[in-house]
């Protein structure tokens, strides 16, 4: 199977370029991960489901107030983020080892190499060196390709507005610039959210797992998912139960289209001479056969 694919790619003249592109991209990923970019570690075993993060998020981002925090009724059905709700806490009732409730906050994962930013044709979505994936509303066309691309289904669109925007968690990029922590992490009372540099948080997460090997699932969600994300999760129940998709592989998303995009220069340099050659060939044949009628101007 692998052989077939490779052969075909070679025919298209892609293999080398795709390989190179892939290599340079993973190099970029590791640079980002080491550069002191910020992240958040979510320890879902500590989350008590108070939804204080939702309220803080709405306040910091000037969004409508969320459903009354602390009210157990909001956990009856699974909620998703929306154009006016950048983060939601969902419950996995009675899923803990002793039948306790477990909760997980969801928001933009702020991928190290975001699918949304690579999909955006106007650079309205941009990965900053500090960590946040930010949105420039003055550039956005509203094509919604970012929504198609995002494996975590994070970007949300204002369908009811005549002048719509794409909306999502900003990782409080402005607050971070001013030296503050993201609003949600600042308000969390249980220590479930830890804000820090991503590489340190990976170590913190692994330390917790090593020190409590029977408690935690031996995986840091987000360390490698979609090539790595700024937000990391650890848990004592399977991550799918917390609404974290298990379908995302470890390939950074931009790599998925790099091969196809690298064929552009090949087509533009190879096609015209090839076609002109065929044209000359058929012209000559036509002349040799003497089949052209009348004086040709071409």
């Amino acid at each position, binding site marked *: *199977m692998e052989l*077939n*694919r490779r052969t*075909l790619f070679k025919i*298209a003249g892609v293999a080398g370029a795709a390989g190179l592109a892939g290599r340079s991209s993973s190099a970029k990923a590791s640079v980002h991960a080491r550069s002191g970019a910020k992240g958040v570690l979510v320890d879902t075993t500590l989350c008590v489901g108070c939804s204080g993060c939702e309220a803080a998020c709405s306040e910091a981002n000037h969004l409508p107030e969320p459903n009354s925090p602390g009210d157990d009724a909001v956990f009856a059905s699974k909620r*998703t983020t*929306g*154009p006016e709700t950048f983060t939601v806490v969902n419950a996995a009732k009675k899923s803990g080892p002793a039948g306790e409730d477990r909760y997980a906050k969801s928001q933009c994962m702020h991928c190290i190499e975001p*699918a949304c*930013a*690579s*999909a*955006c*044709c*106007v*650079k309205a979505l941009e990965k900053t060196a500090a960590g946040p994936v930010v949105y420039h509303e003055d*550039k*956005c*066309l*509203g094509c*919604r*390709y970012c929504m*198609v*691309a995002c*494996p975590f289904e994070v970007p*949300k*669109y*204002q*369908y*009811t*507005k*005549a*002048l*719509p925007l794409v909306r999502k968690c900003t990782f409080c990029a402005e607050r971070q610039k001013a030296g503050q922590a993201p609003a949600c992490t600042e308000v969390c009372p249980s220590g479930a959210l830890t804000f820090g540099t991503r590489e340190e948080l990976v170590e913190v997460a692994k330390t917790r797992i090593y020190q409590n090997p029977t408690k935690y699932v031996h995986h840091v969600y987000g360390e490698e998912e979609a090539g790595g994300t700024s937000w990391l999760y650890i848990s004592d129940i399977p991550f799918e139960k917390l609404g974290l998709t298990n*379908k*995302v*592989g470890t390939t950074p*998303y*931009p790599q*998925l*289209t790099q*091969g*196809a*995009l690298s*064929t*552009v220069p090949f*087509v*533009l340099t190879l*096609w015209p001479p090839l*076609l*002109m050659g*065929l*044209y000359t060939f*058929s*012209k000559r044949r*036509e002349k040799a056969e003497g089949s052209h009628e*009348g004086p*040709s*101007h*071409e």
Partner: protein
Amino acid sequence: MSSVIAMPSRTEWLQDKMFMGLSLRDYVKSFLNPTDIVIGLILVTGFPIIAARFMYGLGAVTNLSQSNPWGLWIAFDVACGVALAAGGYTVACAVAIFGLKEYTPIMRPAVLTGMLGYLLVVLGLFVDLGRPWRLPYPLFWSAGTTSVMYELAWCVCLYLVVLIFEFLPAVLEWLGLKELRMKLAKLSIGAIVLGISLSTLHQSSLGSLFLLAPTKLHPLWYSPFLPFFFFVSSISAGIGMVIVESTISHRAFHDQLDPKKPVDIDKLTLGLAKGGALILFSIFFLRLQGVADGGHWNLLATPMGAWFLVEIVGFILVPSLLFAWAVRYRNVLLARIAAVMTVLGIILNRFNVSWLAFRWDAPDRYVPTVAEVIVSITIVTIGVALFRWIVNRMPVMYEKPGYEGLH
């Protein structure tokens, strides 16, 4: 060119070029025929919906959702529109590059169909985009070079220019600008080569768009070969559309054909059918190759697998065999049936990739609203109306006297 004698008055020019030789009163009256009335009714229904979409947002008229951000307008008007407009580059390649001169009479209608097809794609995008007036942003303002959409924007924009350029001779002949027309003839091969190169790129890029959705598109449709599938199937779409379009237009505009130079449309149809049989046959095996590459044979036994087989057997293998049968037994009707099936198959494929097999396992499936369907019909109707308007005035179906052998 003595301006004293020859300059026609403005009214005469209007009457001759715009009103098809009729007086204004007769011209207005000529719209009272079933076809024009139906076209008018569709436009009158569609425009208010488009107006509502711009006043109240996409949510007011569409069923688009946070999890299904692309609907009928992208699946049909853009994805199908681009594929079905492929007749332009397919026939241009056959005639100008491979030297198959016998297809010259169907080249102009094919190029016109292509040009209008792309205009409709842009129109569809205009309705679908959140802020369509920013359409030039990716080109000149903020280049997102890592995006397939960016490449698509450039290619579609440039190709539309190339198509207008390829069709310009008909416009110049209509306006009687012979000198300019002769100069243009020398440049046409360059335009055609550029057009084929750009088509190769953006037909495949349309498939590349979905490479970013490996977890959302069903594995039978998701493949690293998507760009390749989209490009090759655009050729079959081109062939299918040229057969369908030439059959319809040679009937609808029969009175425009030059009786002294009868075009054997049946013979051309069978020639195209041969190409169709070959290309569809190879597409069938390419798609199986996609299944083999992903190791998804087991999925063929699922409901989505059955739907996949409907597409690749019913609308790729079967029309391929019908085309072959039609060529073997010189059965033109069968070739036309196969062409219609090919066109439906392309629509089915683009619908599957961008809609039906996209988030196939999600609880909230997207179904378009009636309003969305009406807007799509409106956009196609605009194309049909423009096609009629142009063919009724410009030398598309026939060679204009004095310009023979120039196409």
